[in-house]
């Protein structure tokens, strides 16, 4: 029996001790009418060898195309040590550190994680993770509504330059509490939220303004002006940031005069593989003033009976297992193992390394844009300072182009036509530090060929501006 250690003799001894004749008898409180006899739709057991064979086939089936998609998940180099350490049984198979004395490994690591996030974001405190970047933003919005004492409103300003999936997730999560998201448009020339367009809302009551940096188009928002506008209007500023970009960019804690109040984002770039979208982790940091409104676990440093330093879960009175219906969130299981990986990842890279990874991603994306815009008809939209993503407009239907590229094992970018039809045949492209010159060159060549073919077929349909 896979994973079950009992011998027949032991089962008999145990039943005898219990005073039951059979294992079945142990289920005698369950009404017979409920009992199940068969599981026909479930296949019979596979041995480890057989499932190994099957999974190897499945893994191969999807190929390993060269990836120029970012759009919320980024293909950064992960040092080999990260996962070799993270999967050590002591990290991998522990539970949430409820018994602090028997969990100092995880607890100290989480305290280090919080410290690293504080260093990176310039905020005062960090929690120990949420599910992912999108749900972290939803929690940040809920938190801002609770935390903003100046505001009685349940309205939050949400720029359209925030990742479309994030906006959906936020709406799905907060709408049941009657929170309203007010969308802010972006400047069609620059691709950023124009602080001027906020003017119309001056004097109105909003709990928070969300500020993405870089925004979904890869472009930099005027975070200082936006943060200051928020504060001038009694509104909290919530930053949504890319942690790798933060190695180079101004940390949210220093935006504007007073800094953002809350910041959150997707932790995936810090050591989580692309892996079909998860597990990743959301991070959430805030100013000291807001700490008691934070969702999720928080680890504190304290002393033991002998005065020795130790670490423990703290501020648990915010949490569901203590506060139940009055908790700051329902989150229980979080993304601990991913945070373990992220902490080791940041320790291995260090300040220097993270900066170099960020700079190389920045540079590679420039190279990619240069190579692709050399293809006739391809142009950059929003020619603004950007980090490692860019919007390109194609002279042929984006869907078809991307499909043809995929057939050549190049994932050419994220199709923007669904979420931003007003941009035409636009795609969002990305090149992390992992993309080589050769790969970029190959992409450009294939794109040229594909466009020639597709352009021929569809010419006239998509008038070149």
């Amino acid at each position, binding site marked *: *029996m*896979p994973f*079950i250690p*009992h011998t027949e003799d032991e089962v008999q001894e145990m039943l005898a001790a219990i005073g*039951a004749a059979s*294992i079945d008898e*142990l289920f*005698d409180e369950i009404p017979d009418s*409920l009992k*199940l006899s068969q*599981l026909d*739709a479930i296949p019979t057991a596979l041995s480890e060898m057989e499932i*190994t064979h*099957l999974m190897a086939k499945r893994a191969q089936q*999807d190929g*390993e195309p060269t*990836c120029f998609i970012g*759009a*919320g*998940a980024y293909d950064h*180099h992960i*040092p080999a040590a990260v996962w070799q*350490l993270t999967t050590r049984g002591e*990290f*991998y*198979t522990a539970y*949430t550190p409820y018994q602090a*004395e028997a969990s*100092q490994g995880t607890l*100290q*690591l989480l305290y*280090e994680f919080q*410290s690293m996030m504080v260093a990176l974001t310039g905020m*005062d405190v960090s929690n120990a993770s949420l*599910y992912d970047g999108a749900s972290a933003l939803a929690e940040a919005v809920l938190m801002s509504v609770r935390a903003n004492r100046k505001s009685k409103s349940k309205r939050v300003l949400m720029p359209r330059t925030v990742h479309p999936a994030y906006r959906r*997730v936020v709406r799905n999560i907060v709408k*049941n509490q*009657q929170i309203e998201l007010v969308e802010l448009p972006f400047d069609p020339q620059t691709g950023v939220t124009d602080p001027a367009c906020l003017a119309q809302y001056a004097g109105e009551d909003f709990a928070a303004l969300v500020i993405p940096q870089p925004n979904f188009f890869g472009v930099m928002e005027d975070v200082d002006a936006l943060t200051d506008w928020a504060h001038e209007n009694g509104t909290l500023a919530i930053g949504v940031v890319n942690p790798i970009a*933060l*190695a180079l*960019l*101004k940390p949210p804690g220093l935006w504007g005069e007073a800094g953002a109040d809350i910041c959150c984002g997707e932790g995936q770039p810090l050591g989580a593989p692309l892996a*079909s979208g*998860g*597990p990743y*982790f959301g991070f959430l940091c805030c100013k000291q003033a807001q700490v008691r409104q934070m969702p999720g676990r928080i680890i*504190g*440093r*304290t002393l*033991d009976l002998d005065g020795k330093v130790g670490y423990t879960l703290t501020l648990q009175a915010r949490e569901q297992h203590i506060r139940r*219906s009055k908790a700051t*969130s329902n989150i229980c*299981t979080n993304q*601990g*193992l991913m945070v373990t990986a992220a902490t080791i990842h*940041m320790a*291995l*890279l260090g300040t220097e390394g993270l900066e170099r990874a960020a*700079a190389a991603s920045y540079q590679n994306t420039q190279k990619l844009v240069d190579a692709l815009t050399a293809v006739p008809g391809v142009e950059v939209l929003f020619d603004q300072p950007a980090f490692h993503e860019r919007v390109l407009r194609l002279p042929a239907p984006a869907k078809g182009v991307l499909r043809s590229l995929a057939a050549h094992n190049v994932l050419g970018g994220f199709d923007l036509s669904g979420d931003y039809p007003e941009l035409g045949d636009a795609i969002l492209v990305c090149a992390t*530090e992992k993309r080589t010159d050769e790969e970029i060159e190959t992409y450009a060549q294939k794109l040229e060929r594909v466009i020639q073919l597709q352009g021929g077929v569809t010419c006239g349909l998509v008038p070149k501006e």
Partner: protein
Amino acid sequence: MLIFEQSKPGRKATAQAPLNRADVSAIPEQFRRKQSAALPEVSEMQAVRHYTRLSRKNFSIDTQFYPLGSCTMKYNPRACNSLASLPGLVSRHPQAPASHSQGFMACLFELQEMLREVTGMKAVSLSPAAGAQGEFAGVAMIRAYHDARGDTARCEILAPDAAHGTNPATAVMCGYKVREIPTGPDGDVDLEALKAVVGPQTAGIMLTNPSTLGVFDRKIEAIAKTVHEAGGLLYYDGANLNAILGKVRPGTMGFDVIHMNLHKTFSTPHGGGGPGAGPVGVSERLIPYLPVPMVAKDGDEYQWITENERPESIGRLTAFAGNAGVLLRAYIYARMLGREGMPRVAEYSTLNANYMLKQLQSVGFQAAYPQRRATHEFIITLKKQAKELGVNTMDFAKRLLDYGFHAPTTYFPLLVPECLLIEPTETEDKATLDDFIDAMRSILEEATVDPELVKGAPYTLPVKRLDDVKAARELDLAWMPVVE
């Protein structure tokens, strides 16, 4: 020592990043950071040594018996880890087209189908990221269902007093009020009390069965009938599914929606706090509202079901498809169990729990529900010891650590005083259970002879008992560089 305390500015001992630093001066200064982030600067070896040593300060399933009730700390098969980490799987971008995702999607689809079968629900969505998010999805679906019918007066969710904290917290996140239902003296829900409070304001009830009291609610069919007749829906908290896997199906019990904790029943690792996965299954009437994405099969081809195909869906709850890597691990585990393995999970976890309960009783401990069968877990109460010896549940728990066992769940459910909720799981062998029982017996002796010994525990761990009050009062939540 913290990793920060091993840091030296100017150390560049890494082969990890690109070797050279690219020029970023084209980014306008207003956007750039002026001071580098103070991450630790250590060598690769320092990092490896530091985190290797840290890991050794943890208890874990791979090193200790970890009978944490309600958490199903069973063995996490190593194959699930290595196979879910195959290069072709970890390199797949979440936005990769379906043409380059058929292998991955096949796993998801088959997992949906297996979960459907074993829970007896009509359809399954895998996307919620953990149990609590599964609960959110479930209650949001209940809300969407009532709303769609214009049945908008239903503003209350019922939950037994034994419910896990996520249940009421979730109901509130979904905009509901929560009303607690008391538990009867036999551990089952007090049906009369339930009947007294259901009504047109009832949106639904959140239940676990077996409950967090470690007993199977025998009146579940009557409860279902009561709630359904009042127009409410039944939510099943699947945290305890291990107890009945392949033996009884929540669908058969009459539940309308269920979440599963794959990180419990399907043995994906807990990772020191996560990640998990909380798929939801529903009865016919809730299908339109299932969260997206899901996977459908059309002929030989797998396709994504998104907001476009499901306009009434409660939508997506994470940016992509939830905790995909956890789903893959659960899929692999489920295939290794197969149809023959699933009921065995329930059988042997129940056998282990009932054996432990009996043996602990025989060495002098009180069961909270002595007249009941244990399910996969059970509660003992140390009320007597606390009163007579002044040694409470937490003291027992800490002393167990010295004996090399992780403590069971303490002080939950709240309604049983001085309780230990003990869940051995099916993957532990008899000898380990016997050792644990021995340790409990021996601590009981210590508590009688020398209570201070037990109250001062633990003694053999990296730290002694920690000052939680100080931690909460004098908040120290992040290391700060010492300014010289």
